[in-house]
């Protein structure tokens, strides 16, 4: 497959083949990787300047795309089957198609660079090292959807990336890749960088839009506020993840049909898997979707588990993805094709991970070995969601902190077995009852941890505890958890 890809790349007339590229010593891609988006990440002699980018054939696809008709660009993206890399995995071309056909309002495009799903760290490197790839992808995408004003909503914790992007935008302007009448095509586009201020909820597209409107980032109810129809300033708005937008450049380069040959059907292209936790070589690895299994990812690419350790669990798609237990059996495929596999044999693609009861999410793979306390892991996750709940709607506002408080007690040995039942029921009372997907994001960890590790969680409870309300502040501090 790797060779096929190379062949296709050459066929598509790319100026460079991968073999021309050298990477910084110690940061070379793993042989199982297919570097498309991350082609220039950690590349020897590479810098984020436009000069470097242009020398490498940069902005050629912008020129090519702007010679096409917008609907042709849209069609290529649709044909490519590009699924969103931000978390939901929704096909980008389909999303673009939701702009009402008779629309007369301005259309906006927002690049979601709020990368904040725990376990995910890919967009950071694109923005730091290859900002022009993003800009080129954005120009093409804006052209396709008819947007003349676009924002990059970048999380506040990426101050350097924000500066790099602003510099890159200025450079692109200077070279006529942004602004009025781009490359003499008559297409106008301004891109501005908009910095967040530390809120996971701004990764939710309607929360992001509210934030960009200068309001508290309270997600909007859908219906009626589907962004493609009523987004920023109540105008049609397309929100796509950084990695997703970068792919558009490559789709134009290869053609949607060719691009779709990478990856797997309905799980096309490459994607960056971010591996963290208990492996020897955590990091980012761009692979064709579905071409590596969990086992290959952990054992081959990431160098395996730490010495003497056994796998306990994997959270495969960012911290809100449901946990997979190491000794679980998963049934994938339908009808005659159905087969039972274990965790090591799960191909890392959207559909299989969904079939396994979890999700590919944002590509953040968190590996947990047998040295970890499940209660501690769950508590850490619950603390994150309690901190990040925006507080707009009742179940999430009250439930996320409640779950955290129960697991606080759990890790301190102050929970009773009934607390596990309460915890589970609180999670189910949030799940599916909230305005936005944060409800699922914060309840799925608890639901899945209890479903799969009830014994271990219960082992941390004490049956003689009942009914006490405990003051945990000081005890949490004493336990170093505050």
């Amino acid at each position, binding site marked *: 497959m790797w060779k096929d890809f190379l062949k296709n790349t050459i066929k598509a007339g790319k100026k460079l083949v991968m073999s021309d590229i050298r990477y910084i010593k110690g940061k070379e891609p793993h042989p199982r990787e297919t570097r498309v988006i991350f082609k220039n990440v950690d590349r020897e002699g590479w810098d984020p300047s436009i000069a470097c980018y242009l020398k490498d054939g940069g902005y050629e696809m912008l020129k090519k795309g702007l010679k096409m008709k917008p609907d042709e660009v849209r069609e290529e993206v649709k044909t490519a089957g590009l699924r969103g890399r931000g978390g939901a995995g929704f096909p980008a071309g389909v999303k673009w198609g939701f702009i009402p056909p008779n629309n007369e309002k301005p259309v906006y495009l927002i690049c979601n660079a709020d990368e904040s799903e725990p376990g995910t760290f890919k967009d950071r490197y694109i923005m730091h090292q290859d900002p022009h790839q993003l800009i080129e992808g954005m120009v093409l995408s804006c052209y396709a959807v008819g947007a003349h004003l676009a924002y990059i909503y970048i999380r506040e914790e990426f101050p350097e990336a924000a500066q790099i992007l602003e510099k890159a935008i200025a450079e692109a302007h200077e070279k006529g890749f942004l602004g009025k009448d781009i490359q003499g095509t008559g297409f106008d586009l301004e891109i501005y960088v908009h910095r967040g201020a530390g*809120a996971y909820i701004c990764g939710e597209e309607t929360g992001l839009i509210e934030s960009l409107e200068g309001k508290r980032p309270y997600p909007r109810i859908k219906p009626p506020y589907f962004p493609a129809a009523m987004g920023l300033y109540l105008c049609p708005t397309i929100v796509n993840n950084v990695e997703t937008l970068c792919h558009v450049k490559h789709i134009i380069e290869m053609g949607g049909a060719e691009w779709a040959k990478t990856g797997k059907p309905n799980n096309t292209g490459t994607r960056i898997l971010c591996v963290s*936790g208990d492996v020897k070589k955590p990091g980012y690895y761009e692979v064709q979707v579905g071409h590596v299994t969990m086992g290959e990812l952990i054992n081959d690419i990431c160098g395996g588990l730490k010495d003497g350790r056994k796998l306990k669990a994997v959270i495969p798609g960012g911290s809100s993805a449901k946990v997979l237990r190491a000794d679980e059996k998963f049934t994938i495929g339908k009808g005659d094709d159905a087969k039972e596999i274990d965790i090591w044999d799960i191909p890392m693609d959207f559909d299989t991970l969904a079939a396994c009861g979890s999700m590919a999410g944002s590509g953040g793979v968190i590996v947990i070995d047998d040295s970890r306390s499940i209660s501690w892991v769950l508590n850490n996750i619950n603390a994150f969601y309690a901190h990040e709940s925006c507080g707009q709607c009742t179940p999430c506002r009250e439930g996320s902190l409640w779950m955290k408080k129960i697991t606080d007690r759990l890790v301190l040995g102050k929970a009773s077995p009934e607390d596990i039942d309460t915890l589970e029921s609180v999670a189910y009372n949030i799940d599916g009852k909230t305005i936005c997907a944060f409800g699922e994001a914060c309840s799925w960890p608890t639901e899945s941890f209890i479903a799969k590790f009830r014994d271990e969680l219960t082992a941390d409870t004490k049956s003689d505890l009942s009914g006490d309300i405990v003051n945990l502040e000081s005890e949490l501090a004493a336990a170093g958890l505050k």
Partner: protein
Amino acid sequence: MPLEVPSELEKSIDDRITHYPVSKRSAVLPVLHELQHHFGFINEDAVEWTAAKLELEPIKVLEVVTFYPGFRQSAPGKYHIRVCRTLSCAMAGSYELMESICEKAGIDRSGVTHHDPIAVSADGKYSIEFAECLASCGSGPVCLVNDDFHEEVKDVEGLLKKYN
């Protein structure tokens, strides 16, 4: 007391506001970022100034300021350290990193609360708080010192020495 905004800063703010041709209100975050960058934190005067600048009711600015932990409402130290608290970094030792920095920088975090998450060293040089996932989970534990990012932080003394 009205905030005294130097003309250069105001020019930069005015420029930011032009990025939002449809609605000035959209510039709330950028204006606050500029003010915090200059003054170190956002006080009531900065809220009032921003509201006046963007023709908003002050409460609409305060709503935003208090929502985001990225906006500090009290003065941080000269070097403000944000240690990632979330899962992968915690697995890589971020709680230990926090403890170590506090010990070596002379910061007492015992008074930290939800509403007052920042602890400042007695000499005012360092301040510290936990941040949620800084999106560098593969190289934990990580932290931000002012705008500088540090990964795989093991050598706390070396880190602090850079900010002296």
